[in-house]
Every structure is written in structure tokens, then in C-alpha cells.
């Protein structure tokens, strides 16, 4: 049995060889993936990269299309625009039946906490750079940049508190306790961030910034003023807006109509814009919003069309006309059947349950689009904070403190070709805000809630042109915390921290 001996020895040998020689066989790097380098914190020239990432997150998360209607449909002027799609928006915005299982509330929640998380980690990165340099110029930049990030974080919390009231302060991303804090506590937390930004960011306009359109100390002052306004701290509002006004950096853009279109991008009126770009070329990549424009594009054919949401109520249109509004009406109302001054025809929908008047402030004429681009609103920015609001807050604070608000107030009126008013009253200011800021970020709802007018204006039958019964009560000021969040994070049921 000579052969079998050979064979068995060979076989055994082979198994052994295979077994021993293949130890390193499994140690294989994954394909198509270069290990991520850790951030090199000594290269302070790169420290703005983390900040740029936060702006990107505000752009992608903060303009998700469903964030928009949730933010603006609860007042007496704007409604969802469609009853046949996203019916919950009609239920919530007109009948004030809040459905905590509505996906959009959850989306708004997660998108804005997404901004908070990216901001938190960007601040960690900036701290890493700061710890690695002794160069004073670099450290100054570092503090400036941290100010920008803290503004953006406060902005995310501002949207969260406007929507939900008491929310969780996420001081670090891996925080275990997810209990909420009271609205008061969250506002104080935001003001801390904003104070830091005021003290460290340059006192220039965003369009003067090294990174054009980045937020500045003034942006932080304005957001802080808005928070103080909600808290009824009018002296603070006056102080902060006075600084912005008296520094004379900002001015109203003379052409209200173009303010919201391509020529008005990053103009001297702008305190904060969410920026997009098509890089000025007619093809290839484009950086846009998450359907913020398309969502409120009118029902139409061709490029000047969108999903047909967001409508102005008839009542509001009539009110504006009765005031003798001209330029602000033309700018704000994109009506079915009209042809815009640039020649875009708005066909509208045959369905009478759909709106016949869309948001003109989201309209970019075809003639202003880069040749080759056909997406509604592409290459335009989303206007968030502008100087007109600063002036109106300044006027309101002054009137509330028993002073005259005429001067700042009439700057806004005159630009809109409206006659000046002397001895302006609080109600006139609230009305002016209603017209000036309509279709922008939900200030009307905030104004009627904080001035106690909501219960009267949003009572039964006052919804979308009186069609929907069931009314607003103080208990409906905020939307409920999304059910999915409550279910998966039971801490949210705890009594909010002070």
C-alpha cells in the first residue's frame, strides 16, 4: 500500500499547508474605499469647511418642502392650496386638527435636529482647530466662524420652538437624556448662541462677507430681536434693532418686485438667505433646495409650474386690494389666468377646489433663468431675514415703549408706494407686517398669536374662506410633538426642564 501512504501524507500535508499558509488571507482592505483621514486640526486654513457643511445642512434640511407649509399655513391668509393632495395640511392649517402622526411634523423635527447635530459637530471641529493654533489671526477667524455656526444652530431651534414650543436642547449629539426644556429655557439657550455671534462675527452685511452671504453680527441681532419680541421684551428689541438701523449698513432694496427674484439675491436688504446656485451654466449639477420652489410653483404647463401648493385666501387678496396695495400685490400674488410682466402665463388648474392664487415671492421668471435651466425657481435663493422686518420690529418696539415708530415704519411704506402715516399705531404696524411679510416664513401667524388676535381671527368658520368649521384655541398654539418621536424616545413625555 505504497500509494495510499503517499497519498495520505500528501493530503495531510496539503491540508496543513493550506491551513497554516492562509492566515493572512482574510486580512483584506475593503474595495473602493480610502480610509478617511482624521481632520488635521493644525491646518487652520481649512477650518471654514466645517462651517460650510452647516450652511449646506440648513439648505437641504431647512428648505424641505413640507417644512414650508407647516410653517406658514396656520394664519388667516395662506392655506395649503390643494385639498386633493396632502389633505392633512388642510386639516391642520384650516381646521386646526393637529395629527401627531402626520409625517411632515416628524420631517420638520428630524430635519432641524439634523442641523443642530451638524452644527454641534462643527463646533467640536472648530474647537479642535482652536486648540491647535496660537496664531491670533487664526483664532479670531475661529471665533467668527463659531459665531456663524451658533447663529445657524439658534436658527434651527427658532424653527423648532415656533413649531413645537417646548423642545429638547441637544447639547451634544450622543446625549442620553432627551427630555424637553421649557420654551423659556430654549429661548435663553438660543440667545446665548446669538450673543456669542454678535460679539464675534463682523459687523458687516452678509454680502460684504469673505464668504458672500454668510451670516454676520447683524443677522444674530435680528434673530435675537425676533426672540425678544416673542418674549415681550420690547426694550431689548428696540436696542438691538436700533443698532442695526443706526449702523446704516442696510437699506431697503428699491424694487420690491425684483427683491425676490434673481436681481435681489444678496442685496443690501438681506440679513440671511439660504443660497442655491446653478453655477451660471445651462447644464450639469445644480445646487438647490429640497423642492421649496417646486412645491409652491403654480399649476401650469412648462417651466413656470410646480406642484400647485400654497394659496392666498380670497379674503386676504380682497383686504390687500382694499388697502390700495399695488407693488406688493403684484409681487405676492401669482393669479390663475394672469400673464406676468415678464410674459409668463399662469394657466392654473381646472379643479375649483385648488387655489387660484399662488405665492409670487417664490416666482422666478423664465427670462431670469440661466439658459438651458428649466426648473422652477432654480438658481434663486430663499429669503429668510430681511431689513424690512428689522424696521417694522423697531417701529413696533418704539410704539410699545410709547415713542414714535413713524420713521422706520414709513421707510417700508414708501418703498411699497404706499402713503406715509403719521402717529402709527400697533394695529397699523401689525397690518403692515401682514402685507409686507406675507408668504414668508409664517410671521403673520406669530404676530396674531403674540398679540392675542388669533382666537378672534381664527375662530370657527374663519379658515380657508370660511369653508371649514372648527376653530383655533390657545392650546393649539403649537403643533404636537410627532408621534414617532414620542414613541421612539419616551423621554419626550417627561416634564420639560426649566
Amino acid at each position, binding site marked *: 500500500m505504497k500509494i495510499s501512504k503517499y497519498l495520505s501524507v500528501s493530503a495531510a500535508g496539503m491540508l496543513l499547508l493550506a491551513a497554516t499558509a492562509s492566515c493572512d488571507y482574510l486580512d483584506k482592505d475593503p474595495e473602493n474605499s480610502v480610509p478617511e483621514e482624521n481632520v488635521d486640526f493644525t491646518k487652520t486654513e481649512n477650518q471654514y469647511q466645517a462651517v460650510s457643511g452647516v450652511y449646506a445642512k440648513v439648505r437641504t434640511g431647512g428648505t424641505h418642502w413640507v417644512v414650508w407649509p407647516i410653517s406658514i399655513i396656520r394664519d388667516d391668509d395662506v392655506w395649503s392650496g390643494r385639498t386633493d393632495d396632502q389633505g392633512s395640511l388642510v386639516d391642520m392649517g384650516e381646521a386646526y386638527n393637529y395629527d401627531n402622526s402626520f409625517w411632515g411634523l416628524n420631517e420638520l423635527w428630524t430635519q432641524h435636529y439634523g442641523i443642530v447635530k451638524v452644527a454641534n*459637530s462643527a463646533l467640536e471641529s472648530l474647537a479642535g482647530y482652536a486648540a491647535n493654533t496660537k496664531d491670533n489671526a487664526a483664532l479670531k477667524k475661529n471665533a467668527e466662524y463659531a459665531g456663524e455656526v451658533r447663529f445657524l444652530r439658534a436658527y434651527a431651534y427658532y424653527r423648532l420652538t415656533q413649531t413645537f414650543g417646548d423642545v429638547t436642547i441637544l447639547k451634544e449629539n450622543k446625549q442620553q437624556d432627551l427630555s424637553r426644556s421649557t420654551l423659556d429655557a430654549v429661548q435663553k439657550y438660543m440667545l446665548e448662541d446669538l450673543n456669542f455671534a454678535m460679539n464675534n462675527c463682523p459687523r458687516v452685511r452678509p454680502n460684504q462677507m469673505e464668504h458672500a452671504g454668510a451670516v454676520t453680527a447683524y443677522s444674530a441681532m435680528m434673530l435675537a430681536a425676533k426672540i425678544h419680541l416673542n418674549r415681550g421684551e420690547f426694550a431689548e428689541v428696540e436696542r438691538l434693532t436700533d443698532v442695526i438701523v443706526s449702523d446704516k449698513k442696510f437699506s431697503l432694496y428699491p424694487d420690491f418686485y425684483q427683491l425676490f427674484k434673481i436681481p435681489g439675491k444678496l442685496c443690501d436688504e438681506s440679513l440671511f438667505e439660504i443660497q442655491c446656485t446653478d453655477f451660471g451654466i445651462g447644464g450639469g449639477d445644480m445646487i438647490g433646495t429640497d423642492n421649496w420652489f417646486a412645491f409652491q410653483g403654480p399649476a401650469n404647463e412648462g417651466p413656470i409650474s410646480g406642484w400647485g401648493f400654497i394659496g392666498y385666501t380670497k379674503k386676504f387678496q380682497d383686504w390687500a386690494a382694499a388697502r390700495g396695495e399695488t407693488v406688493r400685490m403684484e409681487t405676492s400674488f401669482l393669479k390663475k389666468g394672469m400673464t406676468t410682466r415678464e410674459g409668463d402665463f399662469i394657466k392654473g388648474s381646472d379643479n375649483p377646489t385648488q387655489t387660484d392664487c399662488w405665492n409670487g415671492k417664490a416666482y422666478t421668471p423664465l427670462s431670469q433663468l440661466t439658459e438651458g435651466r428649466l426648473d422652477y425657481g432654480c438658481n434663486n435663493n430663499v429669503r429668510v431675514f430681511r431689513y424690512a422686518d428689522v424696521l417694522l420690529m423697531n417701529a413696533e418696539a418704539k410704539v410699545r415703549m410709547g415713542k414714535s415708530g413713524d420713521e422706520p415704519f414709513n421707510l417700508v411704506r414708501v418703498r411699497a408706494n404706499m402713503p406715509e402715516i403719521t402717529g402709527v399705531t400697533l394695529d397699523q404696524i401689525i397690518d403692515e407686517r401682514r402685507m409686507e411679510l406675507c408668504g414668508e416664513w409664517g410671521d403673520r401667524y406669530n404676530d396674531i398669536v403674540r398679540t392675542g388676535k388669533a382666537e378672534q381671527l381664527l375662530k370657527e368658520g374663519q379658515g380657508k374662506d370660511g369653508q371649514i368649521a372648527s376653530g383655533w384655541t390657545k392650546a393649539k398654539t403649537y403643533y404636537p410633538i410627532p408621534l414617532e418621536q414620542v414613541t421612539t424616545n419616551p423621554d419626550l413625555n417627561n416634564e420639560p426642564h426649566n
Partner: protein
Amino acid sequence: MEKRLFLFLAAFLVSMQIAFAQGGAVKGNVTDKSGEAIIGATVKVDGTNVATVTDIDGNFNLKVAPGANITVSYVGMKDYTGKTANNMKIVLQEAVKGLEEVVVIGYGSAKAKDLTSPITVVKAADIASTPSSSPMTALQGKVAGVNVVSNGTPGAGPTVRIRGAGSFANSSPLYVVDGMFYDDINFLNNEDIQDMSILKDASAAAIYGVRAANGVVIITTKKGAKNQAAKITYDGYVGVQMATNVIDMASSKEYSDMLLEADYNSYSQVLKNSIDRFGGSYADADFHNWKYDTDTDWYDELLRKAIITNHSVNISGGSDKTTYSIGGSYLYQNGIMNVDNDYNRLNFRASIDSDVTNWLKVGFSGVYSRSTQKLPKNAAWQYAFINPGIYPVIDENNDRSFPKRYGSAETIGLSRNFQNPVALAELYDNENKVKQYMTNFYAQFNIIPSKLNFKTSISFDTRDIDGTEFTPTHYVLAEAQEANKTRLHKEVTSYDNKIWDNTLTYKDSYKEHSFGAMAGFSMREENYRKMWGEAVNVPEGKKEYHYLTQGDAEGVKLGDEGTTYRGLSYFGRLNYSYANKYYLMFTMRADGSSKYQEQWGYFPSVGASWVISEEPWMKSVKAIDYLKLRASWGKLGNDHVAASDGFASISTGNGSSGVFGGSTFPGYQNSSYFSWLQWEVVDEFNAGFNLVTLSNRLSVDVDYFHRMTNHAVISPRVPFGTEALAGNYGKILNQGVDFSATWSDKIGNDFKYNIGLNMSFLNNEVKELGGKSIIFEGFTVNKVGENMNSFYGYEVEGIYQTPEECAADRTAVLNGLEPGDFRYKDLNGDGIIDGNDRTTLGSYIPTLTFGLNFGFEYKNFDFNLSTYGQAGAEMMNRKRGMRYMDSYQNFDKDIVDNRWTGPGSTNEYPSAKALTKGWNVSDQRVNSFYIEDASYFRIQNVTLGYTFKDINCGSYTLPRLRMSLTADRPLTLFGANSLTPELSDPRGVDFDLYPITATYTFGVQLTF
């Protein structure tokens, strides 16, 4: 490294030296107990490779000295062993059915009677009569515990689950084809397969370690037999496929009635537009009398009858040393969607096995497959459901539309949610060309003949897929269905896998003790590569123009991706039996994988069986022919889960960069969520018995199984995040009983028949979710104590009937509800309906699947009937639920006919108006109305055959000819308002699907 081993192997082969001797010769004859000659029995000299096969008279002639030990074996007979003498008369005794059959198990084979686990073997003949493009489709209803969900797209394979779903990630079994590992066997023709062994429990499957958790199917391609003259077989069928169970939709008039009942003011304009443009009349004041000249039945427009045909030729045979089998097949399946979609596949296959010396056996098997799949646009089925009949497929007046003048929703004021389904299907051009080569080479060294051998086997599988998708310029509907530039997407995908197995097998016996041992070592590598490119403005008109370089240079997109995983395994098996009564088996596999951080896993199993009927005290129990009890336990792995999860710790690019005045500043977003994953591990216990009784006529197999998946990967959302982060958090239990019984008997001499029943009961439950009680995923949730992927929503209690009822109901008042709306159950009893009143509403996992089969042979006729069904599963009718997107969506006939029309009309269906309201129809308000019973019963296959045999034409015997008629899936019964209860979505959401096709074929089999 690998190279070194191959060199070693080559040197090893060359260095072999051989010499062996031969002796005299004996003659003999083999018959059964009635004295009839047994043709083709194997006569083998023990301990050698010397063997022959009996001829047509049962005679054999063997070159061996008298007095040698021989074994005579034949299928269905007990083995005969004895010493050779001249002119032997050997009478074989009938065996208990199936027990002597050789069953392929992992890295070896065993006789059925020696198994400690329930392994089901499916033979070529069992799947031959099913006209299907994938062999697994033919298994539907044939094997207890194997759940096959078929797919209607031409060339698409079914979803297969063995013993329930034990993973959130992937529950498809491992297929081992001639030693090569696959995730599916859609490239094989039914005719390529000799047999399939389905390993269901741990003691059988654990030898495949980390790949075994979802069960293992071992497939052997066709082989020749020794000492057999060439056998040439032609098999072919041609048939026609047609859709069954197509949903009835509302006619234009019914659609109009529904919408106008809902809200005349809102909806009448679009309906008038249709009449203005396409004819009809709205003159009557009562809209119920309006007339529509256009009434498009979109399903009808999309469907056609389609051909399927398959032709295969197999040639096999063998000498006393070498066997071979060679074959080719061609399958063509046309799609039932009335556009250019089909599948064709050409397969060639060869195998050779040779005892080149008495110590060396070598062999090869290979399959080459090339196929072309022209895909249908399945979304067209969904659009066929939502589009009303009030506009036509073609509208000659619509001059905006091109390349054809398609009817367009926008011409009557419908929104862009209404894409023309026919245009959608016709403008879709997507084709995959697949070339696949599977080869296996092996050498087996018989170190001690019949006792110890060493086998080394190497398998390669290469699959190249060329995909092309071309979108022509077209205009049908603004934005939704238009392209002003052509777009070409091409991708080249390749898979290149290799496995090298080495096994040392030993078996021996001493008196009543038999034992065996196997030790093995295996290396494998799996490569996946994909490159793709996309360009716009590629010229249209001819396929020859479809190159990326013909398109615009600007805006070209490219992609390149790939993975390589390596595996290294050591495994072994020990088995012992005493007196054919007690059997014990241990297996162990150590699996190493380059994919995971934790590289090594260990998968042991143990199995035992006890043949009670062999006990002396049972011999007197005549009623029982055979009774075996078996039990096993083992651990199995599932490596179909990702190695890690998380978001690239730092993400960069345009999406993470801020825009500053028209250009970007390169940014990054740092997120710290990351997790390493490990494979899922199943702990499986199995206990069962096999009973043969009533004079070998009834055979019953019953097995209870308890499978617990540990470390199941599930992805809950991170706190406050949209991102889901996977972790090995879950624990899933599948337990149940597999039952199968077959009865076969004869009546008279000519009538043989058999009846088979198989049933599988399954209970699936999520046991743990890493501390969470519920994880939401779209329409379904995973909740501890419930089925995996249970639907979640409100329970419909009834319909509000009267205004008084609404006025008295707080929820109705708060939500402005009217009669005809759904009344949801207030589950937490707080008097108000909100998200907290949702509950689980069942899942798409059936609790019972069953198959009942009947067959007979009478003279030259043969007949087979098989059925299949399932019960206890629920599905979600999202087609209806999609109304929330657009209330102009069409209605199905069932909902029209049964709608609430006034107090007392129904307490189940909502009113027409209710169907336009978010309270009743919304993805956010999933409710029990949309969850339907997915139970069904189907006549799976009916085949009638007639065989012409032994027909002489003069001195020439004509080849054997069998002709058959088959009806495959002629009838399916179910209650759900769906095209089919067999859903491709594993969660059971019914959305866009190919309808069930019934296939009627005529087949011919010729054997020379």
C-alpha cells in the same frame, strides 16, 4: 498565496506513480422476487472501483476472482451483499420506499435511511412539467416548509423562504450548484438539473456555516451513468401565457358617478372636459345620466397573450470507467405586457466523471448560460390602476404629444400624477444581457479504496451583465412624462466567484458499528464590480447609436464600485451508527470572513435518530414498515448583512458644501454615528419522525422546528434623526411544523396512483429589539411579541351612518366627519382618535402553506394534479391607499359596487365622498380597510401525458415518445382586491405588480 497552493497541487499530481492488478471473471443474473429481470442494477466489488451494470436480461459479467465480496444495488431495492461465484442467481428484495436512495448532503452523500435530519429530495422529473424560467418556481407547493413566491416579470426568479423569515436583511437560502455558492439559480434551466436536496434543519445545513441560516438547497446538474449506452432525450414544450385575476375597474360612467357624488363642484369640470374632447353628453341635469364615449380599460390595453417555449436536448451515457452528460436548452418567454418585453436563454452544459485509475477519479462539470432580458415597466400596472377611463390611449388631436399622439391627462385637466400607462410602457427601453459560466473541476484520490479518500474540487462562477437603458425624447405630460433630451444609461456588472474545497473522507464498519468522518478545508472569494455611465443627447433611432460617446460631453456621469470578500473555512463531520438502529452525527464548521471585524464564527450541530422499527420488539408490529425518530440542534450563520453601518464619518461634496454667492465652499459634515455589525446566528432545534405503514403505501414525515435568530440586524432611527443605524439588536423566533404524507398504490395491474399532501405551519414572532418595544418602518412596524413587519394603523370599527351619530361623537365633531366616513376604534379609550389608537394589523407571513398533489398512471396515460395555497397572511392594498395622492384616481369595481350610499347601506365600505378625504385615505392613516386577507388557493399544475413505447416499425423500434398537455396555474382563488396575493414586496405592500399568468403548454419528450 493561492497560487502557491495550486502549484503544490500540480506537483503532487505529477509525482504520483501507480500500479494495480486484475483477476478472473464471474457471470450472474439479477431478478426481483417475481423473477423479472432487473435491468441496470449496479454490481460492485467491495473495496474497489470494479463495477458493472446488468443488461436487458438482468445478466452481468464482472472481471473479478470468485469469492470476492460484491454489492448489488438498484433503486427501490435493498442492497444485496455476498461472495462471487459463477452463474450467481441474485434476487433483490424490495426496499421500503426511498430509504436506499442516495441523498446529496453537504460535502458528501448518504443514504436516506442514514440521515438524522429532514432532507427533501426533488428529482428532475418533479420539476420538468412546470413551464417556468427559474427552477425554483417549479418547486412551489412541492416541499413542506419551502415557501415560494413567484414573480411575473419574464426571466425574474421567485422569492424563496425556507422555514419562515429569520432576518430583517435577507431570508433567501443558499444554493450550492456542483459545489458553487449562489444566491439564486435563475440562470439554470429546469432540464439542467438532476436533483435538488433541500436541507431544512441545522444538522444538515450547519456544515455550510455562515451561509446556512436561511436553509440550503444543493443542486446537482445532470450526470451520466456507468455502462449505459448513449441515451438521447429531447424535451420541449410550447405554450401560451395569459393573465388571470385581472382587477375590474370602474367604467367612465361609474367613475363619474363616484366623483360627482363626492363633490360635484370640485370634480365636474374635468369630466366635462373629457366629454367635450372625446364625446358624450352632460346635457342631463342628473349627472347619473351623463354619457362618455371614451371608456379606456387600461389593463386590457396593457395585456396580451404571450408565448413561452423551451427546447432541450440531453445526451448521457457511460462506459465502465467514464460517464458523461451533455446538453443544451433554449427558453423563450414573451411578456404578457403588450410591449416589447421578453426573456430568452440559451444554456449549454457538460459533465464528465472518470475513474482514470483505481486510485484516482477526476471530473468536470460546466454550465454556460447566456440570456437577454428585456424588462417591462412594472410601474405601468400601477398607472393602469389609477388612471380613469375618461381619456384614450391615442388621441389624434393631441399634436403636442410625440413620438405618438398619446392621450394625455393634461388635455382634460388631470394632474401630472396621471401618466399614460401605455405610453409609459412603450417608451421604456431597458435590457440586460447576461453571460454566465459555471465550472467545476475535481480530483478524488482513493487512498484506501471505499474507505478513505481525498477530494479536491475547484469551482468558478463568472457572471457578466450588460445593462442598457435608453430614454427617447418624448412628450406626453408636462414634467412627469416628457424628455427633451435623450438619456442613455449603461452599466457593466460582473461577479467573479471561486471556491476551492478539499475534503478527506473516511468510512468504515466493524460488526454492527459503522462510522464515518470527514474533514475539510475551503477557501472562497467573491468579487463584485460595476461600472456605469450616463449621457444625454445620444442620437435616437437605432440601437447602433447607443454609445455614451455619441452624447453630450458635458454632464456625463460615471460610477465605479466593487466589493471583494474572502472566506476561509474548516469543517468536519463525524457520524456513527449501530446496527442500523441508532445514528449519531456531529458537524462543526469554523468560518472566517474578511467582511466582518469579528472574523471567525463557529457553527456546531448534532443530530441523532433512532429507527424504532429495527428493534426486535417492533418486528412483530406488522402494521409499521418503518419508523424513525430524529432530533437535531445546531447553529447557523447569515452573512447577508452588511459589515458595518453608519454614515461616512465625514461626508463631503456638493451636498455638504455651502453656497456663497454663486459658488460653493468645500464643506464637510461630521457625523459620529457608526456601528460594526456581525453576522446573524440562528439556533435551530428540530425533532420529527418518518413513518412508513400500510404495506409501504403510506409514508408520513412530521418535523417540529424552533429557529431563533440572534443578533438579527435591524435599523432603528437614531434619536431625532432621519438616519437609521443598523445594529445586531433583534431576536426573531420562527417555529412550526412541517408535515408531509404520500400514499401510493396500485389498483389492478395497470392503474397506479399516488396522493401527496404537505403542510407547513409557521409562527413568527419578534422576541427582542435591543430594548426598544417598537421600531417604525413605513407602513409596517416591528414590535416585540408580534410578527416581523406587521402592518400598523387604525382599526375600522364601522362607518358613520347618520348625522346624529356624527354629532354625538367627539372625534367626528373634532374632525368634521360626515356619514360615510370611517369610524375608528378608540383603542386606548380616551374618547379621541389619534396616533395612539393605532395597532398591529397582521403581517404578510403566512401561518399555513400547503400543497395537495394527485397523480396516476394508467397504461400509457399519466396524469398529475398539484395545488398550492396559503392562509393567515395579510397584505396592504396600497393601490387604493394611493388615492391620498390625488383624489381623481380611478376606483376599482369592488369599491364602486359596495360603497356606502346612505344609512344602513353598508358598515364596511366608505362613501364615494369619504374616498376623497384624508381621514379615510392617507398613507398616514393606514387602517384595517386597506389590509386584506392574502390567503389563496391555486391549482398549480395539471398535466396529462401519453407515451408511445415499444412501437416497432419493421425491425426498428421507434424512439419512446411522450406527449403531454399542461395547464400551469390555471386557477387561483383569493379574496383580496389585487392582481395577485403573491407580492414581490417582502412586507406585503401591493403596489405595482405583474399579474399572475396561467400557462397552457403542449409538450413532447423523445427518448432514443
